[in-house]
C-alpha cells in the first residue's frame, strides 16, 4: 500500500470515529442546511450507540449466514450432496433476483417489528453471495491438486481442511464481503421497522424535513460501508498473496 493510500484510509477512519463520537464539532458544516432553527446534529440518540448496534446486527447476521452457507457449500460439493448441486445453483441465481427489502418487508408481519425481522432478512439474503462464492471457490480447485493430495495419502476430511478450503478462502472471503455490504444497506432500511441503526438518522431527517440529518446519516453510513469494504478487500488480498495468487485490481 502506498503512503498516500494509507494516509487517505487513516484520514477517512479518523473522520468517521470523530464524527460518531463528537458530532457537535461538525455542527458548523450542517447548520446552513437547517431551516427554522432546527437542530443541525442528530439529537435523538448517540450516533456512537447507533453505529455500534448497526454493526452488531450486521456482524451477527453475517456470522450466522457464513456458518450455514459455507456448510451448505461444502455439503453440495461432496459426493453425498451432489444431487442437490444443480438445484442449489439455480436457487442462488433465483434468490438474487429478490430485492433485500422484499425479504425484510415480508419478515415483519411474520415476526413483528424490531431487530428480529432485520436479522432474518440480513441472514437470509447474506446466505446467497457466500454460498455462491463457496461453490465457486471449492469447484475451482484443480483436479490435479486434488489428485496430488489424494496421492499424498490425505483422507477426504484432510483434503477438505488442508487443501480445498485454504485454496477457496480468498473467493469465500469475497462473498462474505459482498454479503456484509448488502447487509449494511439492508440494516439501514431496517430502521423503518424499528431496528436500532444508523438508518434512524436518515428516517428522522426525512420525517422532520431536516436535510442536515439526512445528509449526516447518509455520510456516516457511506463512510462506514466504504471503509469496511476496503478493509475486507485488503484482508482478501493478503490471504491471496499468502497463497501466491494474483488478485484482480478491482474485485
Amino acid at each position: 500500500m502506498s503512503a498516500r493510500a494509507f494516509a487517505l484510509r487513516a484520514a477517512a477512519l479518523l473522520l468517521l470515529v470523530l464524527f460518531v463520537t463528537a458530532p457537535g464539532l461538525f455542527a458548523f458544516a450542517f447548520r446552513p442546511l437547517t431551516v427554522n432553527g432546527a437542530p443541525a446534529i442528530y439529537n435523538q440518540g448517540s450516533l456512537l450507540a447507533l453505529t455500534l448496534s448497526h454493526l452488531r446486527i450486521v456482524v451477527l447476521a453475517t456470522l450466522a449466514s457464513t456458518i450455514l452457507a459455507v456448510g451448505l457449500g461444502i455439503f453440495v460439493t461432496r459426493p453425498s450432496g451432489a444431487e442437490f448441486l444443480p438445484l442449489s445453483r439455480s436457487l442462488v441465481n433465483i434468490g438474487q433476483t429478490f430485492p433485500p427489502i422484499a425479504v425484510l418487508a415480508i419478515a415483519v408481519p411474520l415476526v413483528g417489528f424490531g431487530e428480529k425481522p432485520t436479522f432474518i432478512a440480513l441472514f437470509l439474503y447474506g446466505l446467497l453471495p457466500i454460498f455462491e462464492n463457496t461453490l465457486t471457490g471449492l469447484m475451482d480447485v484443480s483436479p490435479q491438486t486434488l489428485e496430488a493430495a489424494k496421492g499424498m495419502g490425505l483422507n477426504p476430511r484432510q483434503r477438505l481442511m488442508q487443501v480445498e478450503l485454504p485454496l477457496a478462502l480468498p473467493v469465500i472471503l469475497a462473498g462474505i464481503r459482498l454479503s456484509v455490504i448488502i447487509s449494511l444497506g439492508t440494516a439501514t432500511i431496517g430502521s423503518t421497522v424499528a431496528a436500532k441503526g444508523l438508518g434512524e438518522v436518515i428516517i428522522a431527517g426525512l420525517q422532520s424535513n431536516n436535510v442536515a440529518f439526512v445528509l449526516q446519516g447518509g455520510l456516516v453510513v457511506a463512510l462506514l460501508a466504504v471503509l469496511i469494504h476496503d478493509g475486507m478487500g485488503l484482508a482478501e488480498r493478503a490471504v491471496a498473496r499468502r497463497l501466491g495468487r494474483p488478485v484482480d485490481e478491482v474485485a
Partner: protein
Amino acid sequence: MNTISSRTTAPGMSSLRPSLSLALSLDRLGSVVAVLIGVALFACPFVIYRANRIVAGEGRMLTDALPPPGVLIVLIAALGVASCAALVRNPLIRLAAASVGLGVIFPAVGWSAGFVTPAGNTFARVSPSLGFWLLALSFALLAADALTRLRLGPWARIAAMAAAAGAVALLLVSGAWNDLSLLKEYANRQDIFWREAGQHLWLALGSMTAACLVGLPLGILAHRVRPLRTAILQVLNIVQTIPSIALFGILIAPLGYLSAHVPLAAALGIHGIGAAPAFIALFLYSLLPVVANTVTGLNQVPAAVSDAARGMGLSARQRLCQVDLPLALPVILAGIRIVLVQNLGLATVAALIGGGGFGTFVFQGIGQTAIDLVLLGAIPTVALSFVAAITLDAIVDLTRRGS
C-alpha cells in the same frame, strides 16, 4: 454480483444423467420434496381467514378450506407429485408433474377464498397460508430442478417463462383469484397501482438507459486510456459500495439546494425529495457494471482479430463498430443484465424518499402491518426482476452463440 448464469457442469455429475427407468432407490432431493409436500398437506393450514384486513387470522386446514371435491383434487394432485418426486428421475416427467401440481393449487387457493369467505361479507380477508406456500415451494423446487437438469436452450427458457406468465395472467383476468385478500388490496388501489408500476419501470429502465448512454463511451474510453481505467473503476466501485438509502440521502442535500436556487431545476421537477435523487442514485449504481463489463468485453477481443481488421484497411471507427463492439456484446449485455435486476430491486427503496414505485405499497404495508399490501408491492417487483433476469440471460446466450 456476478450472477451470470449458464455455468458448466460440475465434475462427477455424470451419475445424475436423466434415466428413463424408474429408479428403485429413492431420489434424495425428491424425497425431501415429498416430505415437504406431506407436511404442507397434513400439518399446515392451507389458507388463513381474517375478519378484516389487519386483525390476526385463523388458519384453515385443507379439509376446511375447500368443498369435498376440491379437497380430493388437491390431495390426489399433491400426493401424485410427491410420489413422482420420490420415485421418478426423468426430469421431463418431474417437470410435467410439478406443472400439474402448480396448475391445481393456484386456482384452488382462489376457489378456497370464495368458499371460506361468508356470503355477502366484504370485510373478511382470505390469504394463502403456510400450507399453500410450502406446496407451491416444493412444486417450484421440483420444477426448477427438472428445468436445470434439462438444460434448456435460450428460446426454450423464454417459452417456458412465457407459458408460466400466460397462466398467471389467465388466472388474474379470469377473476379466479378475486376473493383473495391480495387482489382485494389491488382492487382498492387499481389506479395508484398502475401509476406506481409506471413510475417503478421509469426509475429502473430510465436510469439503466441513461447509464448505457454514458457508460458505453466511458467504458470505451477507459479501455483505451489505461491510467483513466483504474481511476474510473475505483470511483465507481466506491459508489457501488454506498448503501442505497445513504446515497439517496447524500443526493437530497445538493438537489434541494439546486431546486431552491436554480429556477430552471425546479421547473424541470428536480427536488431534494422525490424521484430525482432516486433516479440519479440508480444511474450512478448502474455505471459500474456497464463500464466494467465494456472494458472486460473489449479486453477479450483477441489481438489477432484486431490486427486482421486493421490489415483489411478498416478505420479505427469501423474496427470499433464492426469488430470490437460486436465481439464484446455478450459481456456488455451481461453487465446490463446485472444493472436491470439490481435497479428493479433498488427502485423499491425510492419510495422512502417519495420517489414512488412499488416500494410505496411495501412501506405502507409495513406501517400498517398489512402483509397483503406488502405483497402487493413485493410480488410485482420480484416477478419483474425474475422476468428481466431470464430474458436477458437468454439474450446473452443467443449473442454468445452467434459470435
